[in-house]
């Protein structure tokens, strides 16, 4: 399979760290000069997790970028999911842990990036076992968390109480486990789980998911797990999901049970380009427009997306086109984040204890 090579190669810098990196996110900048990112580390030698705010200097005197740690905060256990909200005056981080707690952090980027835990939910019974995914609503007043225990919780943090209250939206009692979650609108969100299943939830219609997508479309092939979901703010009816066996598909709520397979196992009909055969850990809509102007893309077409995978691929997929491979690492790419303000820049966490910063030209 030949992949389209980028016309102008992007610059990649790999910066070795001495700890495992569980997740990495850009923070929305507070000034034009400084750029910050949040990194969830895990030190295996001392068995200690940490969330660090780092200042990214992309180009000090023409050499490779430098990462300067600004501040650090120690969660009670390893981070399972880390999300940021962008449209807030101050960046807000939501961190979920393997011990079943959620922490809302608000780093003060102007005064040295000090991280303080603004609020925490860690009560017994919030989640049993790890929180598998968390997502912050734009505007940053609420976040939703899901777990393999089948619980869907809504945490709101308006006001300044340090111990948050949460509302149980649903409890599947472990009969269904959820592994991914993403807000679609202030009242709707989507979850994903085992067997490539997706669920659509609407807070206005409580009592369970309002719509479910059956994941059994890949007949004969082994099924898989959804690891990541993304929903574009302008296309709220389409839910993009990435998961096992290199599978990336979109679920259009208007065409209920017919997935649009963008990569991977496929429906067995048209030969769909196989970018990767292993786990797709994260999917995100890629807002970095290339030559084709985005306005021409009709609403039925899926916008360009970026994925990262267990076999070390970072690529951009456009419906009906050859995927564009940006990175092919010898180790897994665990997570990545596209800078919302500066979409040519991508930060990735590599399995071999390093961070890669990619600048597309």
């Amino acid at each position, binding site marked *: 399979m030949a992949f389209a090579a980028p016309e102008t190669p992007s610059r990649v810098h790999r910066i070795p760290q001495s700890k495992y990196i569980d997740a990495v996110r850009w923070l929305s900048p507070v000034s034009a000069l400084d750029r910050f990112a949040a990194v969830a580390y895990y030190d295996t030698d001392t068995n200690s997790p940490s969330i660090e705010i780092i200042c990214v200097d992309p180009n000090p005197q023409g050499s490779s970028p430098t990462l300067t740690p600004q501040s650090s905060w120690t969660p009670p256990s390893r981070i399972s999911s880390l999300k940021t909200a962008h449209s807030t005056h101050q960046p807000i981080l939501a961190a979920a842990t393997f011990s079943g707690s959620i922490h809302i952090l608000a780093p003060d980027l102007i005064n040295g990036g000090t991280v303080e835990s603004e609020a925490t939910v860690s009560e017994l019974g919030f989640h049993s076992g790890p929180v598998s995914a968390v997502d912050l609503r734009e505007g940053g007043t609420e976040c939703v968390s899901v777990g393999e*225990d089948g619980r869907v919780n809504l945490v709101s943090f308006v006001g300044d109480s340090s111990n948050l209250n949460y509302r149980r939206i649903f409890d599947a*009692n472990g*009969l269904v486990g959820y*592994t991914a979650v993403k807000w679609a609108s202030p009242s709707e969100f989507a979850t994903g789980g085992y067997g490539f299943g997706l669920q659509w939830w609407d807070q206005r219609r409580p009592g*369970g998911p309002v719509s479910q997508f059956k*994941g*059994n479309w890949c007949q004969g092939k082994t099924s898989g*797990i959804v690891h990541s979901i993304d929903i574009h703010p302008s296309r709220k009816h389409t839910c993009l999901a990435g998961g*096992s066996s290199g599978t990336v598909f979109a679920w259009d709520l208007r065409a209920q049970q017919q997935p649009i397979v963008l990569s991977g196992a496929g429906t067995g009909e048209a030969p769909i380009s196989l970018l990767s055969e292993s786990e797709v850990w994260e999917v995100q809509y890629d807002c970095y427009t290339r030559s084709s102007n985005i306005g021409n893309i009709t609403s039925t077409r899926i916008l360009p997306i970026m994925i990262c995978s267990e076999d070390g691929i970072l690529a951009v997929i456009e419906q009906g086109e050859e995927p564009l491979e940006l990175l092919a690492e010898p180790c897994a790419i665990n997570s990545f984040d596209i800078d919302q303000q500066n979409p040519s820049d991508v930060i990735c966490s590599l*399995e071999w204890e390093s961070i890669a910063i990619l600048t597309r030209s």
Partner: protein
Amino acid sequence: MPGVSSASGGSSASGGGALVPISPESQGAAVYPLNHGLKSPISRLSISWSRGNSLRVSFFAAPSSVEDDAGGTVVEVKLGGGDGEISDAHWRRIAYGSVSPFALLQSRKNAISSLSKMSTNSSPYDADWWDYIMEYSKDINALLSSQKPASVPVIDDPKSVIVKGEEPTNLKAAWELLEMFYAEKPSHLCLPERLVDWLADFDSLFSGTHPTVHSKLVDFQKELVNLQVVEDNPKYWEVMSSALAVGWLDIVVKMLRLHGSYQLDQLSNRETENGLVEAVAVLISKMPRMRLDQEAGKLGECFKAKPDFVKAREKWRAQINKLDSSAFWFQCAHLQTREGLRSMLQIMLGNANSLCSATCHWIELYISHLLYIRPFTVGLESMYSLAQKIIQLKPMASAHRLMGLIIGILGENTEVVLAECLKGFGPWMVVHAIELLTAGSDHAEMLLLEERPNLGGINIEELHRLVYAQVLSSHPLTWQIAPIYLISCMKHGMVLLQILLSKQPVQHNQLLLKSIEICRLYELHSITANIMKIAGVHHWKHGRKGSGVFWLQQARDEYRLNRIAQQLFDSVGKTISDESFKQWEGLIQLLGSDSKTAGGLEFLHKYRDFKKSLQHVFDGKTTDAARQAVESLISLMKNPSTPQRFYLPLLYDSLKLLNWKDRPLLNVSQTNLLLTKLQDLSLARLRPDFIESELPPQALNSVRLALATNLGRAILEE
């Protein structure tokens, strides 16, 4: 002494070789006290391996009368903090980075060996081969450099004699030695000069244990700032002679130019003296050297061919002799300058005594001999005999690990080289060095690839790869690169890989999927299935029923699916009539329509369909909907996977269908089927393991009555 790992990560027990099964020296048992904090006497002790090279020691206290005393405690003891020179994180970085070069070289080796099998007349070692080896060696070498680039000062300070480059490490020094002798085959002619460069880079490494020229220079550099008249200081001349002896021409010339006679105010009355200093400086910078390339800015004249070099060297020596016997020396008033310069000339002329007194340890003396006395030394044999002679001239009290390695290499003794690598640098070094050792030497290849009965039929190469793979496997971050090394082991690799994968924890999806991915790469389907089964049962036990069912389905484990189905039905019987049916919806969707992978759970699917159609009947009351419900009821009752304990609830739920007003919905044979099932149920109730459903007591009778009525109506209709 070992530290408790929770306190700090970097304590060391027995230095670099701690991971290696062969103990370098048996020094007798070392005793380390452990603080366990228990008050009562210890009754039992359990020691097991923890993560990495940590030992987990569990102390169990004897039952005591004191109430508050803890019953026991667990202490983690970290063994061998590693090299000291290279941190654990850096070692991991090296381990990660060497995966790709190693794998690439292996695949190239395999390609070459399969090619040479096809055509018998072509040699397996062609020009490409040396390129591959060199590429491999360079890739590995690049990993060993420190990550931070050396900062180059913008303004050249005339008084800074030594340029501080990147911090040298013993590991890099050792690798460069191996590269020089085993990977750069064609340049053997220039080996002496390569050694000169090597020592210039790494002489400081010996400073810790031995006096070195480098440490002399460093000391003098400190003094230099406070010296007004350098040429009066005997150390100035001593240090310059030493630097000249080991061939650091740039430093010597730079230092000569610090001579007081260069100063403008003194130039007029020290003209002759200055002329002599400058003459020596020019001679030094014109020294002919036999080497392939010269770094820009380095002094000396390069010659690639031997005849040119011989001619130039004779001419250069003649010039030195001429200067040495010139009359200008008598006009030089400054005693130190005269003596110092003349002793430098002696060094350049190769005076053995001068060289010996100018150098500190035998490698420096050896280098000086190669430079000034025997520059034509070619071949390892003559280099080795020279080295032995030199060692006798400058015997060392203690040996440095790099010295042992050099002797092994020069002596062409593969066993010694391997042993020194292992002792000094650990299993990583051995595994990756073997690739260089076997690259061009048939003898080494025979030695290392010969199967040995005392090693269980494996060869030395495989033994070391297995050891290294074990080291990698013991760390939670590096275990995932161990498979690369294991699959390169022909005999035991695959089995150990299977064991490694089977031992990985399954609690977290990321790790679990990683193991499955590795299984997929090496086509270990049975291991995949096993891992999935373990994961399934783990999730099931922890109440994550959906995840459990998913993994068991993926493993196609019908046996366990049927077993857990029985447990699931217990909760179904209680809850499915409630509103909580939504919870089940997701699980039923997960099961899918494919009954093969669902095991006994396909009943759930049918039961859901039946419940749905029954719901339609209650909502709409149309006969069509009722007929559909009857169809699902019959297919449920016919299906062998429907558990018996559901017979009565199913029939009780369908009472409305059985008593359908308009006309009987079930025909005679259908009714008979249901009656038979009811009969089976009555028999089953006599068994002790039967679970009674939670229904009103009259349920059975009302079902019986309804079925009998229906039978009568059906017979009449037919």
